[in-house]
């Protein structure tokens, strides 16, 4: 899987790229609209991450460019918060998803995965992780051959962990994934804790295996 990251902030770009490369993607970087246009025209990518506010212009023009030559490439916009206009015009141009800066890397990762799943397999891909089988398109989870009943939030949580297998997910990124802007509205970490407790209990009951590991004071890891 090839991903093009267009972001003019070098350090941020590097972090994104190294996180994604650890996930097994091949990444290329571009810092300007000019460079990005070149790459988009020359090569083919599975997904493009594009910052709207670039030093030599708007990333929106890149979306137009990409839609012309490779309409099947998934597009995720990265932009500053509260620029509703960018979001709307980006999605109008055919972008698939939208992330506001600053975002959590696991969040970006799970968005890319879900985008690629939708694009490549029309969502019909089966995710098999050890004893767990997930059908993302109809939000079904099987442990072994038995179906597992999960609430909406528990399912989202499981998908988030599965997408970021073996990664430390901080409480903050989990809360934001589940509740977005409301993440800091309540004692959301307590809620994260109780959601994970429930999910963990349900999975252990069915499979007898605890896939979750606490990282003291920081968050959780889902590992097989």
């Amino acid at each position, binding site marked *: 899987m090839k991903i093009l990251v267009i972001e003019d902030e070098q350090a941020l770009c590097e972090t994104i790229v190294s996180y994604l490369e650890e996930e097994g993607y091949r990444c290329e970087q571009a810092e300007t609209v000019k460079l990005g246009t070149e790459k988009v025209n020359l090569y083919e990518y599975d997904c493009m991450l594009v910052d709207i506010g670039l030093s030599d212009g708007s990333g929106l023009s890149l979306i137009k460019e990409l839609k012309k030559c490779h309409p099947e490439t998934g597009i995720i916009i990265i932009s500053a918060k509260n620029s509703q206009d960018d979001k709307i015009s980006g999605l109008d141009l055919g972008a698939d998803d939208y992330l506001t800066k600053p975002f959590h890397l696991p969040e970006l990762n799970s968005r890319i995965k879900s985008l690629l799943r939708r694009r490549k397999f029309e969502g019909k891909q089966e995710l098999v992780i050890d004893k767990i089988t997930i059908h993302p398109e109809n939000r079904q989870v099987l442990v072994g051959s038995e179906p597992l009943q999960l609430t909406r939030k528990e399912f989202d949580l499981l998908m988030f962990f599965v997408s970021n297998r073996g990664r430390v997910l901080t409480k903050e990124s989990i809360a934001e994934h589940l509740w977005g802007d409301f993440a800091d509205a309540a004692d959301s970490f307590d809620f994260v804790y109780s959601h994970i407790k429930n999910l963990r209990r349900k999975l252990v009951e069915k499979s007898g295996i605890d896939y979750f590991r606490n990282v003291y004071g920081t*968050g959780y890891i889902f590992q097989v």
Partner: protein
Amino acid sequence: MKLQTKINIRFLAFTFLVFSIAGVLFYFALDKVVNQNIREMLESRKAYIIISLLQNPPTVDTIESTDHSIFIKRINNTLEYKRFSDTLAFDQEEKELIPFRKMTFSVHSGNQHYEVVLLQSLLESEDLQVVIFSFMAALFGIVLLALFFLNRWLSNKAWNPFFKSLSVLSSWKIGEARPVSFDRTGISEFDQLNSTLENMMQKIQADFINLKEFTENASHEIQTPLAIIKSKLEMVLQDKTLNDQQNNRIHAAFESAIRLSKLNEALLLLSKIENRQFVETAEIDICQLIQSRLEYLEELFALKQIGVTVCLEKQVTFKMNSLLADILISNLLSNALRHNIEKGKIVISSENQGITISNTSEQGEMNVSRLFRRFAKQVTSSESNGLGLAIANEICNNYNLQLSYRYSNELHCMTIRQKS
């Protein structure tokens, strides 16, 4: 009290005083002149009577003229005297008692002695006095009135440039791009005042814009390094070789970076709202918006076992930007949730063009004057940045809405209402 009224009242009071004194003096002068006049008339009649008596000594003891104005009596007294006195006598023509001046004097002609009494009616002179005095009074009145209107007109005219400047000043809003300009008045004092004001306002405007730009640029520029710090720390946290203590320390730094970046975002949002950068407006159905937000929060309420009572029978719509409406409602709902207690309650109700969100809390009544100020945290909660209500208030201000706080029945009530 208006300056003009004050000046006018003093002016009128002073004029009235002067006129009153003048009136009193005038009265005495008039009185003196009239008295003099009557005395002179009596004297001239006296001279005439003396001559008549001397030329034609009367043959009877008493003589009275037909109009009773002369009365002559023979006496034996040889003393010379002359007396004046006032008296009332019945007048046949007027059919009433009228005042008279009476002059009594003695006349000696050879060995004959007479006492003469002359009466002079004061009626005419009194009438005259009244006429003159009331005419003068009327004249004073007219002059007073004329002066009053003249004075008012003059001061109106003179103060006109001042009121113009005042209206320019009161319609001026700091931060508004519209430049201030005063008309030339042609009066040097006012022109001087206006040019001083103009300079001052330009300076204030420039300072204000500078400061605002600085804040915006600063927050904007901070955003990127913060994002880098956050993502780098997130990467470090992935390192499995870290021990718990190291993990904890990095996580604390990560947490602070998140807080800082949220704070910064909120500040940027505030300045964007203040700059009115959210131009598009639409009729927003607030009840519907609240319903959709509530669905989103349902679970968080459930986890804290908060009972939510929603009573949105009256439809409430506000004309505003949709994103800001969303932020406004989210902020208020978040607050109601964040500051709530376990098993507490939230009541949301709509009334005439207004929405009230009330919640229980462990804190008592808030200090209203500080509530909507930035960073006016009344509790030290790490999850609150102290900007939520400031943002909500700023949004309301932008759309002529009133955000008010009330504490009753142990409920903290936030009400948004259309300003009338």
